[in-house]
């Protein structure tokens, strides 16, 4: 419970946390919020401007679909895709980072060369290539986002493991005859979870933007399912006549990323023993 007590003391961290919780709650509760069907439009209600107390608080798009409803249902997909990608990339990257750092030698060299090679390719290009080759399905989008993400965990975790490996409790584990797997799982992994979590919050923000960019380019989740990036792409044609169609999805992306970043910054301080002992 010290977690929430500490959080309450940081306005910025709390703000980020509240934004995130709000978005997740709305996404989870979407079907019970009495919203219109986000995929069904009405040709008689095309490009209705925002009317805060009317049937379309944030207006409608060019085929008459309710924008608020599309943003809410779009958040389900965005958060699901981004969440799954962060978890997948985090698990793979943490595991490979531990393996590289603990095993060392040839394993380490191969994995780190792989990271270098991938770093040399622009992420967006890599993502475009893979999605274009495999086709834009939700699973493929998650896979490609995770693929752009694992190297960030792997590099940071490997560095942590290199110093952990020299700690005496790891030597002590070897002295009792513990296997390499046991040492990696029981002694190294629990001690790198904190940095992994910090990387995860940074990655979540980046992946949300990248997911939006992919759907903006038409390589994300396919219509008629709503997605924030797709809404931006469709709405931008009408930006001079229907500003709301592109503005509100943009605000939604911005708010989520802001929330994740504020909370992530606080989380990093919370786990940093140096700032911790100062408190």
């Amino acid at each position, binding site marked *: 419970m010290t977690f929430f007590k500490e959080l309450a003391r940081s306005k910025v961290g709390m703000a980020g946390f509240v934004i995130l919780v709000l978005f997740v709650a709305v996404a989870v509760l979407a079907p019970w919020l009495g919203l219109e069907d986000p995929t069904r439009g009405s040709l008689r209600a095309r490009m209705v401007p925002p009317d805060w107390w009317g049937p379309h608080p944030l207006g409608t798009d060019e085929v008459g679909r309710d924008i608020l409803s599309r943003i809410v249902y779009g958040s389900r997909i965005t958060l699901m895709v981004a969440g799954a990608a962060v978890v997948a990339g985090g698990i793979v990257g943490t595991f490979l980072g531990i393996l590289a750092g603990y095993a060392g030698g040839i394993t380490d060299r191969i994995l780190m060369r792989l990271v270098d090679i991938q770093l040399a390719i622009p992420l967006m290009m890599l993502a475009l290539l893979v999605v274009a080759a495999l086709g834009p399905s939700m699973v493929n989008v998650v896979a490609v986002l995770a693929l752009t993400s694992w190297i960030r965990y792997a590099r940071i975790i490997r560095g942590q493991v290199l110093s952990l490996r020299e700690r005496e409790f790891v030597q*002590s*584990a070897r002295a009792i*005859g513990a296997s390499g797997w046991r040492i990696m799982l029981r002694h190294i992994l629990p001690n790198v979870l904190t940095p992994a979590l910090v990387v995860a919050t940074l990655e979540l923000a980046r992946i949300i933007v990248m997911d939006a960019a992919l759907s903006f380019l038409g390589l994300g989740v396919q219509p008629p399912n709503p997605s924030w990036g797709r809404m931006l792409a469709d709405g931008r044609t009408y930006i001079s006549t229907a500003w709301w169609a592109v503005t509100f999805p943009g605000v939604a992306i911005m708010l989520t990323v802001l929330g994740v970043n504020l909370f992530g910054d606080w989380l990093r301080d919370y786990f940093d023993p140096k700032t911790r002992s100062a408190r």
Partner: protein
Amino acid sequence: MSDPLIEVRGLRRSYGGGRTLLGAEKPVTHAVNDISFHVMPGETLGLVGESGSGKSTAGRVTLQLEPADEGSIRFEGREITGLGAREMKPLRARMQMIFQDPYSALNPRMKVGAFVAEPLVVHKQDAHPDRVAELFRMTGLDPAFMSRYPHEFSGGQRQRINIARAIALNPSFIVADEPITALDVSIQAQIVNLFQDLQDRLGLAYLFIAHDLSMVRYLCQRVAVMLRGRIVETGPVEQIFADPRHPYTRSLLAAIPVPDPDRPRPKREIFDVSANIPAREAAMAEVAPGHFVLQP
């Protein structure tokens, strides 16, 4: 006379060497440079020398936590250099290590009960909480603390936790690498007493590593003095204290704090290590029964 529990012959271990990417030669550190010693069952051998003289390396290599470059190690009558992890594993239960820094020796993310029980789990022995509680009591810890994390303990308690883990598998030999150096002076005597108590009850043999001679007379039957990777003098503890032959041993003896200020302090010879690097071809000579000195 019975056989030694562990016998080390001509052990060498160096670090560095090879070349950097640019082709420059990396300097070689001969951390352990041809040392030999043995420890009898139930005996304590003190390994003493200044920081950097290679004591920890000697301890780690003796337990085969890292490979020797050269030399032989016979443990319970069996050569253990070059054994694979699988052949080593049953021997790991018989030989253990206690580390200098009780803070970094405990896994901060593991409950201390699980930490003490881990050797039993690894060797598929009874790791029931009752057995762990017994280990806690043997080392002077309250078993109620089993479900706590390391940061809640003091340095002395942490060292007791390390000791409990080290004795869990009933070893016959323990390398204790400066186990009291990092502790408060008031705690040091308690931990030394615990070492002796456990030795009496379990018949343990220790290689007790220290950077000065102050606790050695009290705890050890024999001493080996190490300087720059070599043993320069070794013998029964009384003999070494009464008749030190090597100048480095004499300077270590002079450095022991004298508890009684009225007692005359032995005259302190300043020992210049860099002027006294043991020569490569220097050999040990027996000056009295069991008392060997490296000849200049």
